[in-house]
């Protein structure tokens, strides 16, 4: 059994920052990640990092913009923490040598981004995430922090008290991809989940193949509530054939969207008469699909993003990476012709419920980055707010897990008696497919056991359970997972996309149920212990099913239109009934829905919900 003070799961921006922070605090920290750190999907982030660095700007303005962008579903303490800590974290990156783009006077550049009242998006060309990821990995190497790379975390070692709030996380179970060994990792002070996105739940996504929501699914099954899962951001400018992202920076620099009639539809059809292309992402994504649905799309599928008028010099200076992406993945020379773009799944606003210190309701279990929900983004994330979230909350979780006093959190976690319980009518029962014993073990669904065990015994027990699960998957002579996975992905993209209707959501739940049942008979054909990606992907598919279901349940329950969540039957934001977070608890296999009020009370003021127009 490996043993460290703090174990960080995942090695993207949040994981690396958390590990560095824990080490700054003197902890013996290790990272366990299914990818080598530099392969993490943080590297694909293009646009930039919002931070109020300049005199004319203020953290208060950044917080206000973020709250408005969230459509008043973000929690003020989390949003204000983000806006307050971001400048310091960005300057920290600069001091670590990050290659930011520069102004004439040598200071770091900032640019305008959608939904921002000040150009505060600090950037490095159109490859900000790549620069950030590598800069932080360099610090990891410098500090000699241990990384178990290509180790896939299959389970959390959590005690099994009745109430999740009484449980404690003592470590994780890791699977060494190269050798096939399964080993326990005991964490003396804390486990930080930083597993990133879940885009593989959909079939058209800007996310990496590795973004299968593992952390969210593991925490959910261990009893941590997951929050606001229905809020999925669809980025307005992804390339149609692959889902590769074209940065919002293109519009920030002046890129224009046209429909098939050559009309600048953002203005001409009144989708965003003031801000046009620079309206918030949810607004632009819906506008594009409306154009396509009304017959003004190109090839009935996409619209055009044109940046030719910016001129070669400016494009090469600030958006060079975009030229390569358009060429390599769509065969378009963006200096000569407009780029085809359409909305693609991009980001999950929801995730593992945490407070502003990254703590979940389970003792010793933290989450940070895209897999977590503090909640900073509410129902819609602003461009340029994901990277500061990684570094701000990664650092806080790392410091806190290693023992630094960050003060009492204002956000509460876990289910309380006074919270409202929820109810949603589903066409099929959600949750565990209803089998027990050995099969449930193979399924990854069985609960933890033995609250009277010592932490070491608990990790050992979880390791044995994982061993049995893997053996069962290898022995089963069942169906390959890939078809089950693609059925779920297609159903999600068809029914739980930008536009959502009740019947479609119900159909998605039926499809997910079918997938669950099919998964009972899943088997891994590859019998090798060496680098068995067949096994890995099969386990990921189980996570995809649980998450797809949570997203859809939330979407069906929330009968209003807020931020990224549009419902055909309910076209208004309903502040009277819905200024609350959608919460789901796994409850040992039968999902329970409840609600937690939004916190609009900031340090010095209350954020009154206003009509959100751009």
């Amino acid at each position, binding site marked *: 059994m490996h043993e460290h003070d703090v174990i960080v799961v995942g090695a993207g921006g949040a994981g690396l920052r958390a590990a560095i922070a824990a080490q700054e605090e003197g902890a013996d920290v290790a990272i366990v990640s299914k990818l080598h750190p*530099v392969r993490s999907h943080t590297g694909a982030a293009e646009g930039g990092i919002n931070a109020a660095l300049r005199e004319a700007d203020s953290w208060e303005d950044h917080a206000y913009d973020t709250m408005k962008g969230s459509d008043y579903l973000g929690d003020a303490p989390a949003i204000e923490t983000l806006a307050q800590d971001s400048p310091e974290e960005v300057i920290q990156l600069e*001091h670590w040598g990050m290659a930011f783009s520069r102004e004439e006077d040598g200071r770091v550049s900032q640019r305008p981004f959608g939904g921002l009242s000040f150009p505060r998006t600090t950037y490095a060309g159109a490859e900000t995430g790549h620069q950030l990821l590598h800069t932080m990995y*360099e610090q990891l190497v410098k500090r000699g922090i241990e990384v178990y790379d290509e180790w896939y975390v299959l389970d959390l070692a959590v005690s099994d008290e009745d109430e999740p709030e009484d449980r404690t996380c003592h470590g994780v179970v890791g699977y060494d991809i190269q050798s096939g060994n399964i080993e326990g990792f005991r964490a003396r002070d804390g486990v930080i989940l930083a597993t990133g996105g879940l885009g593989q739940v959909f079939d058209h996504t800007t996310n990496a193949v590795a973004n299968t929501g593992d952390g969210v699914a593991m925490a959910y099954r261990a009893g941590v509530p997951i929050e606001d899962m229905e809020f999925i951001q669809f980025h307005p400018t992804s390339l149609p054939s692959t889902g590769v992202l074209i940065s919002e920076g293109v519009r920030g620099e002046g890129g224009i969207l046209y429909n098939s009639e050559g009309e600048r539809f953002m203005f001409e059809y009144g989708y965003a008469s003031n801000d046009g292309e620079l309206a918030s992402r949810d607004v632009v994504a819906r506008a594009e699909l409306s154009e396509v649905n009304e017959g003004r799309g190109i090839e009935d599928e996409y619209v055009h993003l044109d940046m030719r008028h910016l001129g070669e010099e400016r494009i090469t200076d600030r958006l060079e990476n975009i030229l390569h992406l358009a060429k390599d*993945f769509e065969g378009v020379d963006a200096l000569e012709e407009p780029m085809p773009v359409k909305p693609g799944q991009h980001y999950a606003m929801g995730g593992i419920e945490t407070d502003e210190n990254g703590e979940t309701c389970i003792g010793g279990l933290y989450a940070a980055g895209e897999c977590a929900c503090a909640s900073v983004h509410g129902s819609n994330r602003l461009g340029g707010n994901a990277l500061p979230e990684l570094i701000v909350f990664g650092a806080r979780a790392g410091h806190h897990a290693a023992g630094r006093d960050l003060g009492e959190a204002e956000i509460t976690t876990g289910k309380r008696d006074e919270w409202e319980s929820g109810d949603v009518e589903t066409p099929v029962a959600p949750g565990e497919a209803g089998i027990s014993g050995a099969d449930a073990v193979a399924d990854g669904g069985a609960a933890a056991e033995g609250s009277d065990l010592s932490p070491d015994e608990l990790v050992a027990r979880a390791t044995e359970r994982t061993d049995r699960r893997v053996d069962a998957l290898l022995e089963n002579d069942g169906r390959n997972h890939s078809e089950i996975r693609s059925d779920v992905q297609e159903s999600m993209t068809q029914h739980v996309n930008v536009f959502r209707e009740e019947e479609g959501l119900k159909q998605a739940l039926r499809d997910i149920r079918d997938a669950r049942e099919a998964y009972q008979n899943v088997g891994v054909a590859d019998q090798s212990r060496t680098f068995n990606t067949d096994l890995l992907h099969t386990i990921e598919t189980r996570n995809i099913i649980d998450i797809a279901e949570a997203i859809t349940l939330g979407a069906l329950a929330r009968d209003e239109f807020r931020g990224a969540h549009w419902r055909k039957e309910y076209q208004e934001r309903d502040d009277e009934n819905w200024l609350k977070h959608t919460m789901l608890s796994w409850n040992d296999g039968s999902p329970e829905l409840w609600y937690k009020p939004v916190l609009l009370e900031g340090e010095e003021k209350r954020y009154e919900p206003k009509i959100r127009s751009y």
Partner: protein
Amino acid sequence: MSTQLPEQVEEESSAAEAEPTSAAQERRLEKKRQRAEEKERQRQAEEAEKALEEEDTYHLKVFRYDPEIAGKKEPRFDDFHVPYHKGMTVLDALMYARDTYDSSLTFRHSCRQAICGSDAMFVNGSQRLCCKTQLSDLEEPVRIEPLPHAEVVKDLVVDMEHFYDQMEAVEPYFQTNELPEGELEEQHQTRENREKVKMSTRCIWCGACMSSCNIAAGDNQYLGPAALNKAYRFTMDEREGEDMKQQRLEILEQEHGVWRCQTQFSCTEVCPKDIPLTEHIQELKREAVKNNLKFW
């Protein structure tokens, strides 16, 4: 170029080390194996038939090896016929083959957009990133092999440890003795200087350059083009200051450093991010000479 396989471990010893499994489990696994083989034969027959019917397929010849699976211990090439659509990349084709025909086909990949650097392979005789290589640019059959000059773990996966070791040998992190006083104050850098290091910061650690380099193949201690480029990125960054530059050049001048490069440009040719690696190494050589003259 040769593909390197790890030295075969004696079969008996590895079997002895393995956990004892029950006889019943062994029988079940044996049956599963037999069924899998039967399915594989069926697949190949069906696929060959399909390939004849359909014009628009691409023929892949893919390297296979697994140190513990009978039939794969000896490296072989498997044929896959993949239906083609416009814009299809080598990675798309591999994923299709895996998801449709053989789920044990193993390769690294993640972002699909040339930024994670996972899927550099040897495609039709040169190092390429599979996700940004269009099938339509390739002659058939498309031959896909693991990166040469690295030990093969399984199928198209190679052991990257040596590559990472070299990357980490050049103090690959920013160092300076003179940070600004205020906590919220940034260091200044001229646009020209940022431009100078820009290309070098684009490296995605895919290992294509190292695999293409004849010198690295013959000298295991040679830092190699990627690590030297990483060193260039910091040596040329004006924010580090002169002292640090001096220190870095001393590391780079060592026996297995910059002077080993014989400017064959193979690294530059294969770099999927168009980094002028050879030029960077040459520039470091010039800097080293200048530096020595200064202190002579």
